[in-house]
């Protein structure tokens, strides 16, 4: 039984032109008489001045613990209301009503009144969330991987006051970095071969009392959640268990399969070597008189031709020239990707006498004759008399541990979820077919790094070509396994300097995740949210929809009873599980099927003689709702029959709401979510994709109720569609008016 005793009060804001467009007395009547809110107050502005003082006094005194503020959009003035104790519930009658509807108009008044009804219903069915625990079990950081990325991460975390355990599968720290004779410049003046510096970093880590190092150790398995990752450390001598707050995977990269370099002559001679092998020769001072370095362009052989290969080619060419100024070095490239300040490094090599040659390598023979189609001379040129041919190789991410065999489950986790070759834009509308046929790339070999005991599989999810990277541009450390961050070349090809900065970024996010889970608060994107899903197991049918569809693998299954088990600190509070549950038994304290059903039912549905249809719009609060606000800011007129309910994510929309609305007499329902598919923009990965799939089944149900399929529509609205959203709603309004009213209108 919930002990929260609701003390709601309605605060009707009359400023910003509201009182010139609406009858405030009528609104007050709706809130108090109709919806049973004990008290209503009015002011020209509750965000400042004495209006704000009254609101503040009411809430600080405890008389009011649910302030229903009827006025502008929840996206405005939030800073003012965040300090108030208790719940603040906003009814948007400015951006979505007064700024998009004609003033002093019957339908405008009804829309505003309905927004208040919905807000009151929301208050009646919502209560402030409580933290699921008062402290995390562990605030220790696990770093997997002892190369430059892992070592930097461990040191940076220790410098920020964090205790670290560093696990390295081989018997020595340093990884690849320890093998380089010289390294690429990463800071101003962006020129000059750099010393390796890895030995000092290893020394720092070994002497740091905040860091415990385990070599020859891999992760047996990991279970639990941020703030409580219970992990088994396995090494030859004996396994041990430890509990961590968050995890950084810094497993770096492995060499590509050199068998794929045959067409560039690899294997035909000992002097046709990869850049890694050549590094050893440079370290031994074995300097060739003439050398060709081929920047390997092929996409099929390696995930992609990276900036790193170009910089490595420049470095090695420069090393030869500095050792012997009379040497002849040719760097052969198709696109010279020395981007950004690496241009200075490229110029340094040119100044030293390295010749850069744009062209496609046609063949490399055993006698080291490299035949290049030199684009700029427009001829095939056989280059002879070379002492060595170096081929740059790509970096294959260690998203899996190649030394252990593949796990049975979770194979689909290792397929890239972006089809990289799909043409980006549709031209005159028709769906472009993929540029190359192999849509689902082959699965990466090797076993799981962390062996996560997650229902959805043991691996960390990967993107195209196996890199365990964020899918987002503005949030480079976004991860589908909360509290588990990746850094270094496992994320994307990086030089040592870039990997060190990446380690700093990942450490910040790991410490931040520990702080959030310690306070039972959600991490990005719903930062600070205390609510979490609760499962009414009494009517749970164990259909496993929630455990399968959760984008973040937050819900496991109880091995004995099969019931869903939430790991709260993995959860991002998006509500996709709530939307998945066929019996709507999953709910959040302040966001649940019951609450939204009540909001839907609270709207006054005019009977069929009034000729006034009602359209329910459930819109994503991160993109569609701001777009609707901005349509209001631009004073674009919008269909007057729509009733808008913001949802955390379209994935949280449950079929129950659609059913409730149709039964209540709504004439049309529109769902507005973010773009789905390969270039998805949903902040919760697949919310809008889920909604589209679920709503696709509504069609048959509607037909079985003799209702037209077009009454329920799912559209994709980006935050920039501030023009398109008005047209979409208006044309949907016309479609509904064409279909006529809902036959079930009571």
């Amino acid at each position, binding site marked *: 039984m919930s002990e929260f005793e609701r003390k709601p009060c309605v605060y009707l804001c009359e400023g910003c032109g509201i009182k010139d467009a609406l009858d405030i007395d009528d609104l007050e009547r709706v809130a108090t008489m109709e919806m049973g809110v004990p008290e209503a107050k009015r002011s020209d502005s509750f965000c400042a001045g004495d209006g704000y003082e009254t609101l503040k006094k009411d809430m600080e005194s405890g008389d009011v613990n649910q302030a229903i503020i009827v006025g502008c959009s929840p996206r405005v003035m939030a800073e003012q209301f965040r300090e108030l104790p208790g719940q603040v519930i906003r009814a948007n009658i400015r951006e979505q009503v007064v700024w998009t509807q004609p003033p002093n108009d019957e339908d405008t008044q009804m829309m505003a009144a309905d927004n208040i009804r919905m807000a009151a219903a929301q208050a009646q069915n919502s209560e402030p969330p409580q933290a699921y625990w008062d402290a995390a079990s562990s605030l220790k950081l696990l770093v997997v991987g002892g190369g430059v990325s892992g070592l930097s991460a461990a040191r940076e975390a220790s410098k920020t006051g964090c205790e670290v355990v560093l696990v390295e599968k081989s018997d020595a720290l340093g990884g690849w970095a320890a093998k380089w004779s010289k390294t690429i410049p990463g800071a101003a003046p962006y020129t000059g071969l750099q010393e390796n510096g890895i030995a000092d970093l290893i020394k720092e880590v070994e002497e740091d009392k905040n860091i415990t190092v385990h070599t020859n150790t891999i992760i047996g398995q990991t279970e639990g959640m941020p703030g409580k990752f219970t992990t088994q450390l396995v090494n030859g001598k004996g396994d041990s268990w430890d509990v961590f707050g968050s995890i950084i995977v810094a497993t770096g990269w492995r060499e590509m399969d050199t068998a794929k370099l045959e067409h560039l002559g690899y294997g035909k001679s000992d002097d046709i070597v990869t850049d890694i092998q050549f590094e050893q020769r440079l370290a031994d001072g074995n300097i060739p008189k003439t050398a060709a370095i081929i920047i390997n362009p092929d996409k099929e052989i390696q995930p992609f031709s990276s900036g790193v290969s170009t910089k490595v080619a420049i470095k090695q060419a420069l090393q030869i020239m500095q050792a012997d100024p009379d040497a002849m070095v040719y760097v052969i490239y198709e696109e010279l990707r020395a981007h950004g300040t690496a241009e200075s490094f490229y110029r340094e090599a040119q*100044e030293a006498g390295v*010749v850069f040659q744009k062209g496609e390598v046609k063949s490399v023979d055993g006698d080291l004759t490299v035949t290049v189609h030199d684009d*700029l*001379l427009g001829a095939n040129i056989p280059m002879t*008399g070379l002492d060595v041919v170096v081929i740059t190789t790509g970096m294959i991410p260690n998203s899996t541990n190649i030394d252990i065999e593949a796990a049975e489950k979770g194979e689909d986790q290792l397929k890239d979820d972006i089809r990289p070759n799909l043409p980006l834009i549709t031209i005159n509308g028709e769906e472009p077919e993929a540029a190359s046929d192999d849509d689902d790339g082959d699965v990466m070999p090797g076993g799981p790094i962390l062996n996560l005991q997650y229902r959805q599989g043991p691996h960390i999810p990967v993107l195209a070509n196996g890199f365990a990277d964020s899918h987002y541009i503005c949030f480079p450390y976004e991860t589908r396994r909360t509290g588990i961050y990746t850094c270094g070349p496992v994320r994307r090809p990086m030089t040592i300097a870039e990997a060190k900065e990446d380690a700093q970024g990942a450490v910040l996010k790991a410490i931040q995740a520990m702080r959030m889970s310690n306070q039972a608060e959600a991490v990005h994107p719903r930062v600070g949210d205390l609510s979490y899903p609760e499962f009414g197991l009494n009517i749970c049918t164990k259909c496993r929809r929630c455990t399968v569809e959760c984008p973040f693998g937050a819900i496991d299954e109880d091995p004995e009873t099969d019931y869903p088990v939430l790991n709260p600190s993995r959860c991002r509070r998006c509500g996709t599980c709530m939307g998945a549950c066929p019996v709507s038994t999953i709910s959040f304290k302040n966001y649940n099927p019951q609450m939204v059903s009540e909001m839907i039912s609270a709207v006054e549905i005019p009977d069929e003689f009034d000729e006034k249809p009602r359209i329910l719009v459930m819109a994503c609060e991160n993109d569609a709702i701001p777009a609707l606000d901005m349509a209001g800011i631009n004073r674009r007129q919008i269909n007057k029959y729509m009733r808008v309910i913001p949802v955390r994510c379209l994935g949280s929309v449950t079929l129950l709401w659609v059913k409730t609305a149709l039964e209540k007499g709504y004439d049309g329902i529109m769902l507005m979510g973010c773009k789905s598919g390969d270039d998805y923009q949903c902040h919760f990965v697949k919310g809008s994709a889920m909604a589209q799939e679920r709503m696709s089944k509504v069609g048959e149900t509607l037909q079985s109720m003799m209702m037209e399929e077009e009454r329920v529509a799912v559209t994709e609205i980006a935050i920039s569609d501030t023009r398109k959203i008005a047209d979409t709603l208006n044309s949907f309004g016309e479609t509904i008016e064409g279909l006529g009213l809902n036959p079930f209108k009571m």
Partner: protein
Amino acid sequence: MTAPLPEVASRKYDLTFARWVRDNVEGGDKMNMCMQCGTCSGSCPIGPEMDNGPRKTFMMVRAGMREEVLSSSTLWNCTSCYRCTVRCPRGIKVTAIIQGLAQVAAKEGYAPKGENASFANAFWWSASTFGKTDERLVPTLYYFSAGFMEGIRKSLDNLKIAINMLKAGRMHIGMPHTIKDKKGLKAILAKAAEIEKAKG
């Protein structure tokens, strides 16, 4: 020219010629900075007349194509307008290199008859002998350098122009202007040539 010109390279993309140009042609030290962007050839007012243009010439130097470079028409069409030099994103003195290569080509006998080299020689003859360029003798000598008949034809073409210039008093009648100390100039130039040869 200081060091002697290397012979034709045994293999393509041998850098000996490129390194020679680097050390002996003015502006050559920066030639390897060329990133083949095409601004110079794209800006050249007389570009279409050139067989290779400066950009491709630099690439041919890198490729060790000595013969093709020194016998290319590019070297003789440069109007020395310096547009390529000022626009080169890499700060290479393109005009100086092309004219330097022309100098080498002339010295090594690659210069085609009846082309700029003949005009240059006539020009140099007048400058070194009279200390001044005679605007009448130099063009005439040049016209006849491609053969007597060609000389007559070209002179007739420009007859009208010559008459106009005479009328406007812009073509001197009589002996060519000379400097007073012709002997001194001759000595200086001889000494300079001698110093140059000594440098080998």
